[in-house]
């Protein structure tokens, strides 16, 4: 079974993302929720994970720091990362892609946006 980590400090945001994933046919994927980057990083190190969806503005460890930690870890360097944020713009997006994120989505996220961003993942 595939595993996806959803990192966002908002229960509501995590619920929306889970709902979108279910709508696009990923209801049977194991979804691991994390309230901040540190928790997400620990979850990613503790088990095999196929995808990381993360917010940027989070307490304890923000999304940008999380991406840097993931990309600095030999074990996690290939983990695909999609950023879902309310603080996105083209300059920020370019910066995040350079850091190693695969896509950057702006909130409010919708099932078609998620479908488009996860097309590769769904094909595998």
């Amino acid at each position, binding site marked *: 079974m595939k595993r996806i980590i959803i990192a966002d*400090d*908002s*229960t*509501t*945001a995590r*619920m*929306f993302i889970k709902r979108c994933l279910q709508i696009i046919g990923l209801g049977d994927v194991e979804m691991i929720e994390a309230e901040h980057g540190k928790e997400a990083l620990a979850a990613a190190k503790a088990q095999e994970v196929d995808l990381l969806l993360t917010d940027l*503005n989070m*307490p304890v460890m923000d999304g940008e720091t999380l991406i840097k930690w993931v990309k600095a870890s030999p074990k996690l360097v290939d983990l695909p990362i999609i950023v879902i*944020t*309310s*603080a*996105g*713009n*083209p*300059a*920020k997006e370019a910066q995040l892609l350079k850091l190693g994120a695969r896509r950057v989505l*702006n*909130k*409010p996220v*919708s099932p078609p946006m998620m479908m488009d961003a996860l097309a590769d993942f769904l094909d595998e």
Partner: protein
Amino acid sequence: MTKHNPLYQAMLTAVSQTLENMVFIEVTEHFDRSYEIPTEDLTWNSLLVNDPVQGEVRLAMAKTLMKKLTGNIFGIDDEEITPAQMDDILNELLNTIVGLFMTNLLAHDQEYKMGLPELGEGELPEIDENTIVWKLMTDEEDALQIFATGASLVALKND
């Protein structure tokens, strides 16, 4: 301030897009510009915009509307709704609204930095000359209000 300037429209668009996407609710301007949400039924939060301008955005609505939205989003009955769920939704709504608002206002490649939403307590802060208020209502005539405050923030495209 005119209702047709870019700042006013940027917020209106941000609120409409957020509520339509997240809670499937349409908003329009309130028919009564003098309407105030009764303090005893008021819930509100705020979020700082730190860069490239400095200001604060507040979202206020009636607790009864907040409860409706929470039930709608979580798909649960009134008696199952917890204060923590309502607070979390209020914060996520404001977070998303401010992100869209800044994206609508700033140039295509201009970065912005915002803080984390914080819940307010008691009455809303006083309105000063650097505060703009959007008085809105849902299609069921539940009121909500947005406040943008801070000289440099409200000066953005406020022609």
